[in-house]
């Protein structure tokens, strides 16, 4: 398996505060990696650095071997993301949002791609509705459709199923898993739902106070550390 994301000893310092310290990890093709940790652990800071919207104070990030700091546009061409805190503009319709971001990502056969995603994410009936009037679950589906527009090699998902009902969340997980295993994609996934993480992720990284404390298979990691479940392990790590 080749790496789509390679993060080497990145750190972020604000004045005297170190938000992320010497974090290194990789995401391989067809792999879903869970980035776990309590609030304020540095997950979103790490994701923002991978997305090129936050400059690391030190360290390097490579997407498909391309250095984000040196060739930002090229690296982000094959990347996409969805996050609960980054809804798409509410004053554009579902179709308009997908068209605008499709053009930005240079998606070929954009009209066909949009139709496919509208069907896949059950958004056809909202096609001409302003994104701002959709329910939070529908907005999440729209964000996920946007994240799939360019069939990214690296997909960053920050709590992608947080606003979805259990049935839709289940279908969405299945869709992302299928996308990750069949295509060229690797996924970095953050979630506070440990059952979801255990179900979806091939590997997890536990981040606390800006450092990676644990790494491994979510199905065997709890037992290896004397805990019954991943949630118990999460609580133990968060309280450390």
């Amino acid at each position: 398996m080749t790496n789509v994301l390679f993060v080497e000893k990145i750190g972020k310092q604000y004045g005297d505060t170190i938000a992320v310290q010497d974090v290194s990890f990789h995401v391989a093709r067809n792999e879903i990696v869970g980035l776990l940790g309590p609030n304020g652990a540095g997950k979103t800071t790490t994701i923002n650095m991978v997305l090129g919207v936050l400059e690391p104070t030190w360290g390097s990030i490579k997407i498909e071997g391309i250095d984000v700091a040196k060739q930002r546009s090229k690296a982000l061409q094959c990347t996409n993301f969805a996050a609960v805190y980054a809804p798409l503009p509410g004053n554009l319709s579902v179709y308009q949002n997908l068209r605008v971001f499709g053009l930005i990502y240079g998606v070929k056969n954009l009209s066909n791609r949009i139709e496919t995603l509208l069907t896949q994410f059950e958004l056809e009936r909202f096609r001409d509705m302003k994104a701002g009037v959709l329910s939070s679950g529908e907005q999440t589906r729209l964000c996920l459709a946007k994240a799939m527009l360019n069939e990214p090699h690296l997909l960053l998902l920050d709590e992608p199923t947080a606003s979805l009902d259990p049935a839709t969340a289940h279908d969405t997980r299945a869709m992302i898993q299928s996308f990750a295993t069949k295509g060229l994609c690797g996924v970095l996934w953050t979630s506070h739902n440990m059952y979801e993480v255990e179900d979806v992720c091939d590997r997890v990284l536990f981040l606390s106070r800006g450092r990676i404390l644990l790494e491994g298979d979510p199905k065997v990691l709890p037992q290896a550390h004397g805990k019954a479940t991943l949630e118990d392990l999460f609580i133990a790590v968060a309280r450390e």
Partner: protein
Amino acid sequence: MNLSRTSAIVIRHFYLVSGSPARVLPLFAWVAIDMVLWGFITKYLNSVSAAGFDFVPVFLGAVLLWDFFTRVMHGVTMAFMEDVWSRNFLNIFATPLSISEYVSGLVLSSIGTSAIGLLVMIILASTIFGLSFLAYGLALIPFLLVLFLFGIALGIVGAAIVLRFGPASEWFIWPVPALVSPFAGVFYPITILPPWMQYISRALPPAYVFENVRAIVAGQPVSGSALIAGVALAVFDVLFACWLFVRVYKHSVRTGLIARYSAESVT
């Protein structure tokens, strides 16, 4: 430069404007009101002043040119503010879109919106109040070019200020043309200003335009060197504005301002 990415910004703005009467109306309403107001003021001045002097090309023409500059500047700023108001920075800047493509998109959006305002002003000023652009001759081209470039430059500077200081700082931006106008000599020769104001005027490209507008109306020749100076200054201002925006953007990426923009907490 990727044209598809630049066009995305223009299309986004087209979608927003075409779908919203609240965005369409300001494109021409305020400039139309200005034309009507100043049209009647100039007609009144023509009726009470000594015969032979026509105030229409002096005042109405000046207001038209100044409003064109204002529309260009606000066109750039408005297109940028759409991303501020919809909290879209993370979505926009976490894409392959480069800063030059983004700024080009803002400028192209402004060309579209300011052209509508210019067209409405020309129709009103020429049909109702008899303003003829033939009076300015070929000099009209550099006049519009200087004002367009300076409007672009101030629009980009405005966007940089809002990016740096947060959404609330937009209130610094809208009055900028009013702040500049006393120094630009829109309605009077800059020689009437105190010396310290004249120094500032010489650094402002529009001052060279309005000095020449008055020269033409007074039957004097256009100063080619002054117009070249105006164009050169305006080009310099655009380059400076782009440099400033890139600098502010890099600062925002370094400090995390883009990722946490609405918080306005990062100084």
